[in-house]
């Protein structure tokens, strides 16, 4: 076993450049399989139903949801934070791992970045939808207007807008810039005139000249260093929505690091979920190897442990503060009407990643897949627990209520899952899932550690 590891290479099969291009290009040229068609039918159907529910919400009002006079945010903001969290892995992989010279990232960064962008797009839908007057969402942007009204720069929601738009922009650019050499390759490979024109336009006249490569590298590094603080800032700022409030259970200084760790945790889980399926269906097992899965699992252990420590710290501080409201908020989480959500969260996020300390388990694809789903559920529960349990029983017991989502809210969430998977399936069909040019540079890399 030990010996085996020493001789393992980053990508398997001693591939030549030509082979790599062929392998990665394959899913884009051939007729997609039955699975792909089934997948896209299901996901676009879900997206469509979700879209109907969204239109209904905008038309009929937020009253269609289960939120009420006490719990103003329910599934919508839970989903928002969850999706933003998922959108953390891609940029983390591309930027931070790039800066840390982690070569294994090259196999997974492209799809992880795509996932990031789609997740952030889904996330962005919820703040828009949860507005009472969604059609006036542009009031939140600081644009010059005749009424001389400006946004409130004190509000974390305004910070959110900036943080998320900046993150989306940089992620999109990063993803796209990284894809340009590959788009050039594809342009040269495709036969149809239309495709040639489109890929030609998208590749910005890439010729592969040394100058192009040099500029590409410089820009990539620049964007990576831009994106790095963003990875940390986005979820910190999202956590400010809660941390700067006065609600017990929200008003917590630990939130920024806790949210960032949680975001990367959930992001990697989602990357696992997607890539385990992708590598199987697109026959990319040589490129996305057990080693990749294991590496990501290690990050999951790390971030999962940070999240676990954060949970315990929160509990300790609630007890140590002797603040009756704070203490109640946490006791209520663990024993109140939403205790099931709390304990699901605890089991999924604190206990399940610890299983990856066992080498056998973290190198087991099926097990990883299951745990990745479990973590996704756990992280969704975490957001739900933070948002709903803190709100539903805050300061004045007279206003305490119970929040239950309505069908519309559930359908909207499923709808965003549909949108996400639809976009991802389109991505695997029309763009290279693995960064061809980058993977070529590491094809002979041996794993010596």
């Amino acid at each position, binding site marked *: 076993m030990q010996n085996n590891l020493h001789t393992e290479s980053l990508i398997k099969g001693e591939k030549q450049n030509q082979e790599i291009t062929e392998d990665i290009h394959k899913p884009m040229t051939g007729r997609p399989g039955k699975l792909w068609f089934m997948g896209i039918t299901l996901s676009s159907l879900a997206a469509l139903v979700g879209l109907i529910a969204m239109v209904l919400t905008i*038309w*009929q*009002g*937020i*009253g269609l949801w*289960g*939120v*009420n*006079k*006490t719990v*103003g*945010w329910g599934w919508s903001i839970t989903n928002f934070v969850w999706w933003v969290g998922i959108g953390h892995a891609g940029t983390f992989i591309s930027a931070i791992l790039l800066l840390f010279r982690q070569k294994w990232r090259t196999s997974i960064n492209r799809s992880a970045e795509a996932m990031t962008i789609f997740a952030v797009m889904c996330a962005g839908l919820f*703040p828009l939808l*949860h*507005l*009472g*007057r*969604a059609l*006036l*969402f542009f*009031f*939140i942007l600081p644009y010059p207007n005749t009424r001389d*009204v*400006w*946004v*409130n720069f*004190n*509000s*974390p*929601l*305004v910070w959110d*807008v900036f943080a998320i738009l900046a993150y989306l922009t940089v992620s999109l650019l990063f993803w796209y810039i990284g894809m340009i050499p590959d788009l050039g390759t594809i342009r040269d490979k495709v036969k149809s005139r239309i495709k040639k024109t489109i890929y030609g336009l998208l590749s910005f006249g890439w010729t592969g000249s040394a100058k192009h490569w040099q500029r590409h590298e410089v820009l990539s590094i620049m964007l990576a260093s831009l994106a790095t603080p963003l990875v940390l800032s986005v979820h910190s700022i999202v956590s400010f*929505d809660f941390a*700067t*409030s*006065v*609600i017990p259970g929200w008003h917590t200084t630990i939130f920024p690091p806790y949210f960032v760790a949680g975001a990367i945790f959930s992001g990697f889980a989602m990357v696992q979920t997607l890539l385990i399926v992708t590598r199987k269906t697109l026959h990319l097992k040589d490129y996305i190897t057990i080693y990749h899965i294991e590496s990501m699992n290690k990050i999951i252990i790390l971030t999962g442990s940070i999240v676990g420590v954060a949970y315990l710290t929160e509990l300790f501080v609630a007890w140590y503060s002797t603040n*009756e*409201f704070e203490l*109640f908020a946490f006791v209520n989480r663990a024993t109140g009407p939403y205790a099931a959500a709390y304990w699901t969260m605890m089991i999924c996020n604190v206990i399940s990643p610890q299983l990856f300390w066992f080498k056998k388990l973290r190198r087991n694809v099926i097990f990883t897949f299951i745990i990745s789903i479990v973590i996704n559920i756990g992280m969704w529960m975490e957001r739900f627990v933070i948002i709903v349990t803190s*709100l539903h*029983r*805050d*300061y*004045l*017991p*007279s*206003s*305490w*209520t*119970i929040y239950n989502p309505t069908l519309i809210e559930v359908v909207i969430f499923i709808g965003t899952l549909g949108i996400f998977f639809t976009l991802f399936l389109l991505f695997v069909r029309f763009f290279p899932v693995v960064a061809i040019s980058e993977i070529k540079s590491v094809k002979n890399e041996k794993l010596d550690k």
Partner: protein
Amino acid sequence: MNFWKNITEFNKQQISKKYPESDRQNISLIEMLDKTAGKSSRRNFLKLFGYGISSALLTAACERPVKKAIPYLIEPEEVTPGKANYYASSFFDGNQYCSILLKVRDGRPIKVEGNDLSPITRGGTNSIAQASVLGLYDNARYQFPMRNKKQVSWQAIDKDITNILKKSSSSGKRKVILSSTIISPSTKKLISEFTQRFSDVEHIMYDDVSFSGMREANRLCFDRSVIPDYRFDKAGIIVSFGADFLGTWLSPVEFTKQYTSGRVPENVGENMSFHLQIESALSLTGSNADKRMVIKPSEEKYLLSQFYKYLTQRKTDSSEEVAGVNIPKVAELLLKNQGNSLIVSGSNDPEIQCLINGINYELGNYGNTINLDNPVYLKQGDDKAVSGLVERMNNGEIDTIMFYDTNPVYSLPNSDEFKTGLKKVKNRIALSTEVNETADLCEYVCPDHHMMESWNDYQPKENHYSLGQPGINNIFNTRQAQVSLLKWMGRNTDFMEYIKAYWRDNLFEKDDRFIDFRRFWNKSLQDGVFNVKNPGNKNTPALDRSVVGTIVDGTAKPGQNGIELHIYENVAVSTGKYANNPWLQELPDPISKVCWDNCASVSPSLAEEYQLDTGDVITINDGLEIPVQVQPGQEKRTISVPVGYGRTKSGKVGQGLGVNIYPLLDYSGGHRIHVRNNIEIKKTGKKYELADTQLHNSMEERDIVRSMNLEEFLELPVNDKEAHQDGHHSGEGSLYEKPEFKGHHWGMVVDLNSCIGCNACTIACNIENNIPVVGREEVKQAHEMHWIRIDRYYSGDRDNPEVLRQPVMCQHCDNAPCENVCPVQATTHSSEGINQMAYNRCIGTRYCNNNCPYKVRRFNWHDYTKADAMGGNLKDPANTTLDLPRMALNPDVTVRAKGVIEKCTFCVQRIQGGKMKAKSEGRSLQDDDIKTACQQACPADAIVFGDMNDPESKVSKKLKNKRNYHLLEHLHTLPSVTYMNEVNNKLV
């Protein structure tokens, strides 16, 4: 550079910049649109032509609803558009009385305010008086005269009825006018003239919730069939046996004023009244008591008889303790306070009322806290006469019946019998305002004006008169009942003239201020009230002790252990008359917090016995199905159900809400009593979700509503909580400077000791601020919109808990958590310390509501008001957005659209109005210029509003009081609303 001297010159320059003065006359329309038009003519002409035509077509194609605003051709003298007029009037619905001011804006009444000049209600109102405005604009009113449900003209109906009345009954059959209690002296005179003119007509009065047993008791004891005048303010000790005198009993607004004035600890000190409530269901009054004891309804009579016995003989029959009440202990306390106590009972059993009379008499309360010489004219209904009428109708002795403002088909326990009898009555005439069960069975419906459309006079008490004047012309083709009666007598007098004549002949002589009737009349009309000065004091008649003695001897110890039914009247829907008023339907019950339904309150132990939970449906005596609500403080084996629900013929709102419990009323000595012994309940297994606005009833030992004992108060009147002293009050607890307000700084003080939790403020706020009605289904989702709510908490024993309450509205924090989280600055702080909402700017993130520790912000979850830009999404279960109910909207307050947050504004429109008034009168703002709607409506004077920067204002003075504290003050939100803690008198 253009220099300008003044603004006129500046404007001139601006104009001349655009169009040089010399050329202005010569510019054609097209040239003005396009400078080059003159040069290249055809091309530009066609461009403009095309643009013009297409835009004209576009705008013409999108048809917009045309709303006509027709100006006055000749403006009425009193009406200034945009300015409200106030007319003194009276509210009386056959049940409760209140002297009011009608606020009339542009010719339509939009608000009821209390009339300070009335010595009875002293400026207080209650929820039903407040909500009566919507009754005026109710689509479910009868809108035209009808014969057999078909519209006919008044002439036709008059002809028919005159013929009916002319035909003197050959076979000795009688004609009857059945009405609710009439306290109008002119109307009474009119009816007596009517009965004289048509000798076969008689007049019977009928009350849905009857007091005839009490009148009977006073007749037996003192030979006076009256209800005496009670003075709760003069009583040092108040003992109430199930009388909900702060909520619904007799004259709650008046009693609330009296009660609370005797309980302001700063004014009365150790003389604060002690209130003992002995009852079966937790009533509003009981929840305010210093001490509350729980007994079964069936135990009341025996308990009272033993009380009386102890007072007269210093001994009881067997044990000293009856139903858990230690008789000597209470009696000795009362004996120590001879002449200074007041004992009342809510029962209509004449024997119980005789015992009450006896006890009060022995304690020397007559002449002090009870006055038989200034009797109350409310509740004149005669149960025996009504029962007799039913019998006579069934025997075919009645050939004509006229219903005036009464609905016996709905509220009689023997309604079926009444209906069969009614079928035998040849001519049935209804003089009703709103659609009801009785009028529905009548051949003729002669719709009466609404109170706000008619002239009337009232005599709620012997020495107090008031006038009712209309605020609007009749909206529908209705006619005041009195005018109808006059017409049928062949007289064409205007009823106002009739009243005037009555006042000239009968009341003018009682006045000593004016020598001229015209002035007397004008003054009375202006004030709304006329009080007889120096009424001759007569001696209290002697009690007929033998009557009481016989009852004491005849009262045996109750032995039965069955379940008892207690039927009561709730604060909102009253006797059922207001079933169609959506504001009142949505008003949560002060105790159970349930709205839109009635339910059976069961005690926690009975619930355990029958395995019931709130929302389980039970049957009573195998008949009625009703959901239960587990109610702490309910007597263990008694269930309580309010009347007023289960209307079968009402408007869209009221029909079919809840269950009609009137059929289960019982009789005692011919009088309707509100208890029934030995009922049987069964769990059906069905579930029914009640709309409850408060789901959690415990304060969780948090420092929310503060209370102290009177002893503590007398010792040191400070609520010495830590939080109070660590600087949050003074603003020292922060790194930031305390915000300062240079001009006005508005603030409010709510005295929790005065607040009785009657909900009048909630309704007043609803009306003043155009707060939408959302309906039962929405309330179930916790979507109710009230800007001011009354939180109610239980503590202690579940079988007899202590009740704490607190009105909560926006606290207008100077360091508001809601303000800094709004991304679009839709909620900001004004320079006068008001937390204000810009509805147009709000995009509805609800972040402010999440971050509000008081949870006072309300969100428009749906389009409740028809103000949304999108169509087809209206959610208006109560039809309040139809044109007619919209007349009740306050034009000074924006109607909010779907998706925006709203909340208490401190009635900013009233603040502006007050400032404007002061300015136009060229004086500085006075403290009384501005009163918020909740403050104005409060019958307990619990709310004081004013300028905290003015050291002379009432609010500033109150703020110096040591009982003050801020809600959740440790959060350092610096609220502008202050609460004063409760003070309980724990004498016993």
